[in-house]
């Protein structure tokens, strides 16, 4: 899940960068090894701030489950640039310390907002750093010092936009959509894609079919009304571009939109949103060049539930079954011959025989010495455990004396 979310963020950031600054020219991305593997707010891009004399990095930015992030986590600067880490005051106490024997060390972790730590990088290289108390949470960063100018002349990211990931994270958008089975239908090979409005689903003609579809940028998507399920429309979630206007119930009605920008476009039918008439169009990608048709790339680890359920049921019923069988056996009374009974008279009551015990234990069988030996053995064992636990294990260690 973490990986998927990160990929999604990376994709989204790529889209954002695309929208903000145009296509960023590809440049050599620094190799951080697995330094950023557990850093949730690192989206795979290094923010290029070359050409600036002084830059600022927030310490305690939101990320990694709280105020446990450096923002931006990865930044590229020219030699001679003054980098200022500024504390936000969130997420407890932080510090900035180089990995290994690097130059950065802001000293003890502090939590006051506005605290600054400044370092001027004179030499080129990759300088990794982290916050000592929160390293394990992913509070890590890197400063890359390189010559040169930002390739796009702006402040944009340098990620290569590839579109949303193979299995986009829709959040809970599809949580109440009955006809969404977790897959995004891949139509990236088509110039024109059609989606049925009012398809069967969600308890009537209240579905988009397919609910989630992936297309390439520039694809014309046509929504075609089936005429079922009453009047529908197609409206973007939030302030997206889709809006088919008033609701229509006429079969064959069409609404067309051509998607040019990459991203995930969620939409719904206003009157039937509550019953789950929702959909999404994923434009671009998938990230990583996969052509798996948007199928979930996580392995299917579900196992059938019935063997476990059946075992538990059997375990519960076993005593009952045993009781029933035992009762059956007892109900077959021995010894009474039905043919000897006179019609109309009650069956004679026979008393159970007084059975003699098979073996009688008398005092003669009691072996005082054997029992005494056993009891003595137990006493010795307890005494040994007592001495060992209290005097060796407990008092033998450094103890609390006040």
């Amino acid at each position, binding site marked *: 899940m973490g990986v998927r979310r990160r990929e999604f963020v990376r994709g989204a950031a790529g889209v954002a960068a695309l929208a903000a600054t145009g296509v960023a020219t590809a440049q050599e991305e620094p190799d951080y090894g697995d330094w950023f593997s557990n850093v949730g707010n690192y989206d795979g891009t290094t923010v290029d701030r070359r050409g600036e004399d002084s830059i600022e990095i927030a310490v305690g930015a939101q990320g990694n489950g709280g105020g446990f992030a450096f923002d931006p986590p990865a930044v590229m600067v020219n030699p001679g640039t003054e980098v200022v880490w500024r504390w936000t005051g969130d997420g407890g106490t932080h510090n900035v310390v180089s990995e290994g024997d690097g130059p950065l060390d802001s000293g003890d972790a502090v939590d006051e907002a506005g605290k600054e730590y400044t370092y001027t990088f004179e030499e080129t290289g990759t300088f990794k750093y982290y916050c000592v108390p929160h390293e394990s949470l992913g509070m890590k960063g890197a400063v890359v010092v390189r010559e040169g100018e930002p390739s796009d002349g702006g402040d944009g990211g340098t990620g290569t936009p590839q579109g949303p990931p193979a299995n986009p994270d829709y959040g809970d958008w599809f949580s109440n959509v009955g006809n969404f089975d977790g897959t995004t239908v891949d139509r990236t090979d088509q110039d024109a894609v059609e989606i049925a409005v009012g398809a069967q689903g969600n308890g009537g003609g209240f579905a988009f079919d397919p609910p989630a579809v992936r297309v390439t940028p520039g694809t014309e998507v046509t929504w075609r009304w089936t005429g079922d399920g009453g009047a529908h429309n197609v409206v973007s979630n939030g302030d997206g571009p889709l809006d088919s206007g008033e609701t229509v119930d006429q079969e064959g009605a069409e609404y067309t939109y051509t998607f040019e920008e990459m991203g995930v476009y969620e939409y719904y039918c206003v009157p039937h949103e509550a019953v789950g008439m929702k959909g999404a169009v994923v434009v671009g990608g998938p990230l990583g060049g996969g052509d798996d048709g948007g199928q979930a790339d996580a392995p299917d680890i579900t196992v059938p539930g019935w063997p476990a359920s059946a075992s538990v049921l059997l375990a519960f019923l076993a005593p009952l079954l045993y009781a029933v069988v035992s009762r059956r056996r007892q109900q077959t009374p021995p010894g009474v011959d039905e043919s000897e009974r006179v019609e109309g008279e009650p069956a004679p009551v026979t008393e159970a025989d007084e059975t003699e015990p098979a073996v009688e234990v008398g005092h003669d069988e009691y072996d*005082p010495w054997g029992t005494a030996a056993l009891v003595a053995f137990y006493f010795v064992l307890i005494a040994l455990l007592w001495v060992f636990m209290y005097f060796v294990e407990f008092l033998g260690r450094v103890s*609390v004396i*006040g």
Partner: protein
Amino acid sequence: MQVHDFEKLWFGASLLLIVGFIATIAYGSAGVGIAMVDDSGGTISAQAVQSGETGTQFDDPGVVKENESHYTVYVVAQQFQFVPGSGDTPIRVPTDAKITFKVTSADVMHGFSIVETNINTMVTPGQVAEVSARFDDPGTYGLVCHEYCGAGHHTMGGSVEVVPQSEYNDTEVTQ
């Protein structure tokens, strides 16, 4: 009712064992001086600990020398470190002296447990946990937080270095 002589013997031995257990605990308490963790540390404002404005030694945690044979260690536990104790700042104390640990939290509930010793207390925000001990042998002991305190709890640890009194360096210690 007939009771065998041996059985009478066992009754007596059982009672003796119980008396022995109680006597052991009495010896541990009175003879060795084993104490329970109590509320003797008093209370403190966790906010003040966080901002370093308690007006106590918790504003500058570390080892304080009370006298030749008594040192007090002030430790602030916070997500996810002991100050001092974690990272490059182990707690350094001498042998053969009474060491009093005063531990408090700057944020949430923590634990303070020195591994392989009986020093083990909860660290509650607003409270000062106070435990004393005497280390006879030099060595390095692990220090762990054993109360779940958040996402990084599993990494919250440190160490206590016990050095021979003759080698103990007082220069880093508040006198």
